[in-house]
């Protein structure tokens, strides 16, 4: 998966979890939850969406790696 594909996936998953959220407003290293007002359940749904969109299994222990935009991109592009 390329950087652009990863961002595209994040946008499409987010559009279902928090339709009002604009990923473009979030700095690369900023906490997604904080910047977009996602609660723990939103974030869990978001991670599950990423897992379903890629077919990657994301264990709970890796959730913290997905806390930022850059973290998500790095994780998704390096998987497989």
């Amino acid at each position: 998966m390329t950087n652009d594909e990863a961002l595209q996936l994040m946008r499409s998953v987010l559009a279902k979890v928090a339709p009002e959220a604009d990923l473009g407003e979030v700095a690369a290293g900023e906490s997604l939850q904080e910047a977009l007002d996602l609660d723990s359940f939103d974030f869990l749904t978001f991670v599950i969406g990423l897992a379903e969109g890629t077919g990657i299994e994301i264990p709970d222990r890796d959730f913290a790696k997905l806390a930022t935009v850059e973290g998500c991109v790095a994780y998704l592009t390096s998987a497989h």
Partner: protein
Amino acid sequence: MQGNVIPKSGEYRGAVPNMADYEAERASFTWEKARQALDGLPKGGGLNIAHEAVVRHASGPRRDHVAIRCIGRHGERLEVTYGELDERSSRFANVLSALGVQPGERVFALMPRTVDLFVAAMGTLKHRSVLCPLFAAFGPEPICQRMELGGGRALITTPTLYRHKVAGIRDRLPELRHVLLVGESASSGAGPDGTLDLDGLLGEADADYEIGATDPEDMALLHFTSGTTGKPKGAVHVHDAVVSHYATGRIALDLHADDVFWCTADPGWVTGTSYGIISPLVHGVTAIVDEGDFDAQRWYETLEREAVTVWYTAPTALRMLMQAGASMAKEHDLSRLRFIASVGEPLNPEVVVWGQEALGLPIHDNWWQTETGGIMVANYACMDIRPGSMGRPLPGIEATVLVRDENDAVEVGADGVVVEAGVGQEGELALRPGWPSMFRGYLGNPERYRSSFVGGWYLSGDLVRRDEDGYFWFVGRGDDVIKSAGHLIGPFEVESAMMEHPAVAEAAVIGKPDPLLGEVVKAFVTLHAGYEGNEELRLDLIGFARTRLGAAVAPREIAFDQHLPHTSSGKIMRRLLKARELGLPEGDTSTLEVRP
């Protein structure tokens, strides 16, 4: 259901429980005796929460003991001793004083979980103003409504929260005189118009503050909660509540002087104030505060690294930990943990048992609510647990179950006497008024307060039954209030926000059972002519509601329904919608009228 019992052997990890025998404590306990464990203000000046929580420790041997250890979002740690908290909160009280904020006036805090919040809380109480913490995950509408109802005179918040949630509603809050910004880069330059830099003001303020005479019945805390209809209710609590915060911390949470205590609740909800801030400080223990959000790995690391001994958390969090697997728990050394308690909604028996397997300790469920101000019914360190039961009433608390009539109201005889339910019979959980942390009113709504009491009992709104040994078992809510992730959500508040959307003609909101959250908010909406209920509109409505209400309150599910069921008087029948959602019999629908 009562087949499974987790017996208490009398051998305890770490420390012997403060309460060794439930029956004996119940027989000897009085609130008057409990009050004697506190100091009171010098020279007979009354009782003030901040004095008991901070000043008395700062002027004694616990001055250098760590009061708060705050873990920042990125893992950075910040420790504050009782002496430091005393000094900083005195500065805060002096800032309020210099601004002209009066005792009795409301000071709102819309804050992340940081040290600044503790400073603001204790400073506000020292100044005898009224602390009203708000949940930072609320959207602008719930914030505006609560600040309006509470007549907020001052607000403490961060630059980001101000920008996102307050700036747009400021002109609707004429009583709000002062906005104090703290944290982030608040002090790096001029803030937005009409705001003050709190750090700058604290730096200039005097570090000494003498608490004025405080009547134990003076208003101290304001916590908003939700009902089925109408606006949120502001439950008023007084300084005397600290007697309950102390006694319940001792009995229900088993706090000992050397404990490291972690209450995971956000102070925007009553648990996070009563037990996240006040109770641990009154006991002089070290309180852990995590600014970050739930993450299974992070939580286990926190329990291990901080050597947490007493942990107070919520069913949703425990269920999420359970989902992450027992193996993750077993990778961490949790041997310092001595006591685990949970509150917010009934804890499923499987979770209680899971605690024993994964964490090496059973989980003690307890019950209380915003109006009660402190724990009322609990499972105790010394008492056998019946998984799935909320436990037995605290010493000093008289609880019963009252029979309800066919209209779902507590049955009252011609002589004004209510009927107590027999063993195993379902009814409404009721408490005999008179404990110190009982609410003293709903701000500005005496009628609603009066209607909370019948025949000398406070009615909780929760349906329960009591078994032959006096354990209470939760059955369900007696009204339409939704409980999601342990937070009460009023359907009316959500429906009102939904109806502001141009496509929505009518909305009905219910709690739909959910394995993790207990319930999720689900909205049924009727559309105006010309709108089509498609996926695009569904997402638009969800985004619309989230922007106004915030993630914690907004619906997560939306269904289009052009024929919502109404009673003949025109009220939406939420309960019927819920019964349909659950696939249950729809009950008596004789008053049902389906409008075309």
